[in-house]
């Protein structure tokens, strides 16, 4: 199975590549005033608005560094494949991929109620890589906030 590797602060993380639609550079974002922590704003992707979530801010509390290696992973959040609910995940140093058996990831042993999106871990020669569970990234309130906004915008465009 193929994984996209990236950093959030000093830590390394992985995301299932099959969920990633495209990896794009850190685009200019339209920011929302008074948006909750982690919501970086939105951008226009292929003609439609897509919300951007700053994974760095969500996990480390710091906004992602504005570097060339910081990229937006465009992920399809929809449960079914017919519909597309795209969301942009801002991740630092998204420059590598990894091909590993999903069985190689083992339970981290710690479950954080505040961070249900942190999945099992994998060891390699450079240390620990933690799997990010894309479908658990948005809490109920955040999901509602992020998607009602963009869905209204999409409907208005139809």
């Amino acid at each position, binding site marked *: 199975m193929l994984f996209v590797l990236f950093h959030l602060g000093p830590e390394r993380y992985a995301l299932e590549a099959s969920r990633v639609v495209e990896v*794009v*550079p*850190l*685009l*200019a974002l339209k920011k929302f005033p008074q948006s909750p922590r982690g919501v970086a704003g939105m*951008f*226009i*992707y*292929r*003609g439609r608005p897509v919300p951007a979530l700053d994974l760095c801010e969500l996990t480390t509390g710091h906004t992602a*560094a*504005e*570097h*060339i*290696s*910081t990229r937006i992973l465009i992920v399809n959040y929809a449960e079914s494949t017919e519909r597309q609910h795209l969301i942009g995940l801002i991740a630092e*140093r998204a*420059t*590598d991929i990894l091909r590993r058996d999903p069985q190689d990831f083992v339970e981290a042993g710690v479950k954080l109620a505040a961070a249900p999106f942190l999945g099992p871990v994998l060891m390699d020669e450079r240390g620990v890589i933690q799997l990010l569970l894309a479908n658990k990234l948005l809490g109920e309130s955040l999901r509602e906030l992020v998607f009602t906004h963009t869905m209204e915008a999409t409907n208005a465009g139809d």
Partner: protein
Amino acid sequence: MTHHNPYSSGNAAASLPVATKGTSALAPVHDCWNTIGVAGNGSCRELVRHIHCRNCPVHSAAAVQLLDRPLSPEYRREWTEHFAREKTLTTPARVSVVIFRIGLEWLSLRTQVFQEIAERRAMHSLPHRRRGIVIGLVNVRGELLICAALDRLLGLESAVPAPRFRSRTVFDRLLVSDWKGNRFAFPVDEVQGVHRLNQEDIREAPSTVARSASRCSSGVFRWRDRTIGLLDSASLFELLNNNLS
């Protein structure tokens, strides 16, 4: 560039980045490839294993480090505009045709129906068959094939006579086709070769062009400064089979 590179004019050196200092607050790139690597004196012991610096993890780590530079506003703006636009897909379904000339008519047929483009060769005429579609028999790789006149079949021969003196000398060819196991040969005056086009490049033939060939025509397309008629393989070979007797 702050680093002196003795081989900077060489190809190997040109493909390797030279570390530039002062682009960011990050640690400067340690460009060992320019000192002990392939662009340097080649004394690095890792070269035995990696052959070239581009295969070495130190080199790729340095490349990743170069990406850890701050984003320039122009870079960001340019990509933002790029990804905001709808993705334009170039249709991968491409049509391959062979373009040829009969008399003054430029025609084409799908490449799939052709087996070979051969030299013109001796024709064995058939008795009492001098006026029809069948011109005679030709020997192609030891097999006798029916040689058919496309211009007569499509009713093109009444057009202005072709400039024979030119075409006879260099360009004339024999197109060998295979349609569902039926092999035929067609003499043509010139072959322009295989050309690829998109389905949307093919337009409907104007009624003036179509003439009696209309039922075999599946459209026209522009090629260089010419309009080429595309023949529909199925109806052409059906028409040919019906006119053999």
